[in-house]
């Protein structure tokens, strides 16, 4: 395998690639961090806002922080008559009227704004409540966006929305989106704008079972996708078997390797540490880009 710089046509430049896996710990961050580093220039967005790890690898500089806030209702005691219309309206049970005043369970509020609309006394207004932060920074050839959900907060969706929206400003760039594990709303939000999805799977029955779940998810959203098999060992690979049965494109394989494992556990970017991994991930990046270009032509984003 020879190292070849990835071509920088406009088509490639504006590609958004989401890296996901149903199961946690399969190597999403390993793959997205190293692919982003192997590209000539790229943007990396860490959407795993519950447990963000990308910044530990990139150790960015020129950090700018931005607070992410959601709107929550706030009652003017003098105007509230205790009619409970807002309490009845709120489907999330985030409001209660007790002890002569309106109580807002801030953690449960989904910020729909319904209570403010239904209040006949105009007693409710909205105030901002911080749920987390976004850090923007630079690390060599990579521009970094990391979201951090405040512990105790239930949903990171507002942070992801804001990061992905902000990133539209720099549309003309190759972007890697490091997604949270699972297949629920937070993952959906992360892949919504992606042009291509890379599914990372590990060689266990857990891995195969959860690969099936994200496979269903990307199919449901009509996203072109391919699989990278990580931690490949000799012997049985249930995830590979699943891909073969479903006729899913295997973009590449990363073999279980102590050296890579150690680098990764020390939050080192393998591509920046050794020629061997630079060559390996550059070649993997080429395969991903080839598949992504092919995938998006054959199956354009809806």
């Amino acid at each position, binding site marked *: 395998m020879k190292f070849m710089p990835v071509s920088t046509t406009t088509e490639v430049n504006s590609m958004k690639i989401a890296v996901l896996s149903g199961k946690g710990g399969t190597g999403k961050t390993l793959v997205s961090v190293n692919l982003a580093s192997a590209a000539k220039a790229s943007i990396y967005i860490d959407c795993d806002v519950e447990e963000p790890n990308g910044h530990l690898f990139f150790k960015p500089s020129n950090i700018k922080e931005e607070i992410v806030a959601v709107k929550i209702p706030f009652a003017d005691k003098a105007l509230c008559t205790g009619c409970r219309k807002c309490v009845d309206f709120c489907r999330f049970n985030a409001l209660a009227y007790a002890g002569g005043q309106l109580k807002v369970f801030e953690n449960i509020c989904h910020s*729909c704004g319904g209570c403010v609309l239904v209040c006949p006394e105009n007693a409710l207004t909205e105030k901002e409540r911080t749920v987390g932060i976004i850090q923007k920074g630079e690390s060599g050839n990579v521009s970094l966006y990391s979201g951090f959900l405040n512990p105790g907060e239930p949903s990171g969706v507002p942070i992801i929305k804001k990061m992905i929206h902000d990133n539209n400003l720099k549309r003309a760039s190759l972007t890697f989106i490091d997604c949270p594990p699972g297949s629920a709303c937070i993952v959906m939000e992360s892949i919504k704008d992606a042009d291509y999805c890379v599914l990372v799977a*590990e060689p266990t029955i857990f891995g195969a079972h959860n690969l099936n779940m994200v496979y269903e998810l990307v199919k449901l959203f009509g996203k072109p996708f391919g699989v990278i098999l990580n931690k490949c060992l000799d012997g049985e690979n249930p995830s590979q078997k699943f891909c073969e049965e479903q006729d899913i494109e295997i973009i590449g394989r990363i073999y279980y390797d102590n050296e890579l494992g150690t680098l990764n556990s020390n*939050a080192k970017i393998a591509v920046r540490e050794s020629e061997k991994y630079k060559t390996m991930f550059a070649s993997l990046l080429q395969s991903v880009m080839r598949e992504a270009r092919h995938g998006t032509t054959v199956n354009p984003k809806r």
Partner: protein
Amino acid sequence: MVQLLILSGKGGTGKTTVAGAFIELSAAKAYGDCDVDAPNLHLIMPQQTDAVKSDFYGLPKAGIDTGLCVRCDFCRQSCRFDAIDNDNDYTVNPFACEGCGVCEYVCPAGAITMNPAVSGELILYTNNSVFSTAHLKMGSGNSGKLVSEVKKQMLSAAANAEFAVVDGSPGIGCPVIASISGADMVLIVAEPSVSGISDVKRIVETSKSFGVQLALCINKYDINMTNTQSIEAYCIKAGIDFVGKIPFDPQAVEAVNSGKNITDFDCLAGRAVREVYSRTVQLLMAGEKGVKYAHKGIG
């Protein structure tokens, strides 16, 4: 019932493998899988009987009757979740709709109704033990609510069980928070990587804000001894009971892939997890609620 919840913050550290071992070792009469996003416990806990399955209804989803719609655009402007499209007709994107009902409220034509929507499936096995699990429909919200239902289902089907093991989900968000409620102890399965350490601190902070007792073990501890030592040191500093270390063991992968429990094999990881188990139980039984059951023995 004494409830032990297994969490990790970071995914893939070995929660399910440890949970499976604990269920076997304790002969727990009740256990549950709260990772409704990507449930796996059923893969290593084969069941003799068929499950009882029931639909899980999350919040309703809005639907627009295009015949009644007057295209005033109020619904689209009022929706905070960008769930209403007006490409041709006004339609609701069911994946974005959170079911708040604002659109129905603002619609002047009565064209919008809120309709019940299935957002997952609850699954209950009742053999010698009760096993409660579920899976969330693709791309659904409401995972916290489904987690609460999994636990409710487990509690009502195994009201007399003294000990329950619950497998949690990765992260620190709503499903995790929902699973912590009612747990008597959280056992964190940590991984000795820089990422793992960062994630442990975040799950500890989250668990502590709910005032639950914490214990921690390290899985695959020998892949990075320096990081293992920092986690042990962190536990001392943070006042978390450290209950042991499990080595990386290819036989554990083999066990999982053959749908078995690591305690079924005489392997290094299996032996280590037994030690982690006995220390965890000691701590649990020393707790306020544990004392009540201690004389009966767990299980």
